[in-house]
């Protein structure tokens, strides 16, 4: 009961923030709304008892990605807010499409009976995650390091100020 109320409040908060992100005209405000959305999703993860993911969500999305976005906004900002209109000409089609997509998904999801279990989350979940990184999922684990390396090199190449 309490959990359901908390869930509904968090859901309203998260969706409101997400709407603010896509609607707000000022880019910095959009970024702050995005931070709010990420925080709401992190609380949802806590409700799902995925505490490691909840803190990772805050660390990576709020601490890193949102900061990166704000920095990029500041770097390219002089053109930003003066451009006419936040949305393009097909925005109404996009809105209609999104609403339709949501209606279809919601209908579908409420019809499908998912086989759920009420098993509890084991205490050593984080240790299991860690041993799977270097066990079953060692290839994706190493590929992620390569991906991050490539992303870092590529982004430095792109963003660096060239002198002379």
């Amino acid at each position, binding site marked *: 009961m309490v959990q359901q109320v908390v869930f509904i409040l968090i859901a309203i908060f998260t969706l409101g923030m997400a709407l603010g992100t896509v609607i707000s005209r000022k880019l910095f405000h959009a970024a*702050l709304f995005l931070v709010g959305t990420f925080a709401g999703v992190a609380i949802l993860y806590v409700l799902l008892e995925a505490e*490691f993911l909840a803190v990772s969500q*805050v660390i990576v999305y709020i*601490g890193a990605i*949102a900061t990166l976005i704000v920095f990029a906004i500041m770097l390219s900002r002089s053109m930003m807010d003066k451009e006419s209109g936040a949305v393009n000409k097909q925005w109404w089609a996009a809105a209609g499409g999104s609403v339709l997509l949501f209606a279809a998904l919601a209908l579908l999801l409420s019809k499908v009976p998912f086989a759920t279990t009420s098993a509890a989350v084991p205490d050593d979940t*984080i240790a299991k995650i860690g041993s799977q990184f270097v066990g079953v999922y060692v290839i994706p684990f190493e590929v992620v390091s390569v991906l991050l390396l490539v992303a870092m090199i590529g982004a430095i190449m792109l963003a660096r100020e060239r002198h002379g």
Partner: protein
Amino acid sequence: MDLSSLDLRAIGAWFHNLLMGTGMSAMLVQFIESLVGALLLLIFGLTLVIFLIWLERKLAGRIQDRLGPNRVGPYGLMQTMADALKLLTKEDVTPFDADRVTYNLAPALAVFHVIMALAVIPFADQVIAADINVGVLYLMAVGAIGSMAALMAGWASNNKYALIGGFRVVAQLLSYEIPLVLAMLIPVLVTGTMRMNGLARAQGDYLGLGWFVWTLPLAFIIFFIASLAEVERAPFDLLEAESEIVAGYNIEYSGMKFAWFFLAFFMNSWVLAAIGATIFLGGWQGPFVDQIPALGVIYFFAKSLFLFVVQAWVRTTFPRLRIDQMMSFCWKFLVPMALVLFGFVAIILKLHLPSPWEGIILLLSNVAILLVGLSFLGRSQRKAVYASKRAFTPTIPRM
């Protein structure tokens, strides 16, 4: 009187039984307990800060051959209270172009992130508000909220200096978060837990020689330097260098809102000292703590205040760094050393040496990595000095 019954946990159990005795539902009892716990943490944090500000001002005064606060109350102890009262009645000026909501939210978030960190600090064995599975990462997560607050304050003030200060502070906080986290990762590697209480408990062996500051001194040094930068203290205080960029991201704040930034700053200093004390200095561990659990509180506060005093001492002694020096010190010295240390510690632990030898080998490897790192640092510094002198001296002496 039986000293072993002096235990904070007993108070908690007594309170629990008292509430259960009134016939309330278990859920409501849980709620009231959590609420009381949260309120206690908040009150504790605010009271502590009043004392810390006095302590730091007194210390800074003595170190700089002054008296420090000595007028209000005995030894000036009530000076902070007087300052707080003054700030409460100060006019609150909001710059006319400020982004109101963000501007008001920023100081609240700055306080928020420090108070949230208190939740995972163990004051004595199991006297901890929330001994969660991901304690260390939780601290990192609330730190991320702190840098967001600085960014928001800098942007919302609509002031060039505030914005520059905000950007600088975020660049510094982000950069030094990496060595801080990597330094905290190494004790986690040794103990295999992220619970703060578990980390403190793991350091009980050999009457204090089991503290990670002895087996992993390099990790502690990296942690301490990075924590100085995280709390924006000298020598890393160039973002609020009063003489250079006015005052940093909080320049436009006045009255109570400024007070919140100031308070968050001091509480953050202590919180990082407490984290350092817990992870590296054994937390509540000390002689006879198993017999009399209440002693743990005294040990913990003694250690955390010791680290706080060292922070204040460093602050009043060292000159300020330049931003380029600060950044390269982080990325070219602290981070590589932390990474190398992580690799070495992981390999040494997998050799499964007998107990005292493992500690000695860890200590030796720490010292060796530190010496190698320092020699590299010294060489590059000499090179930089010669490069800057080249314009004036025609011949460069051979090294």
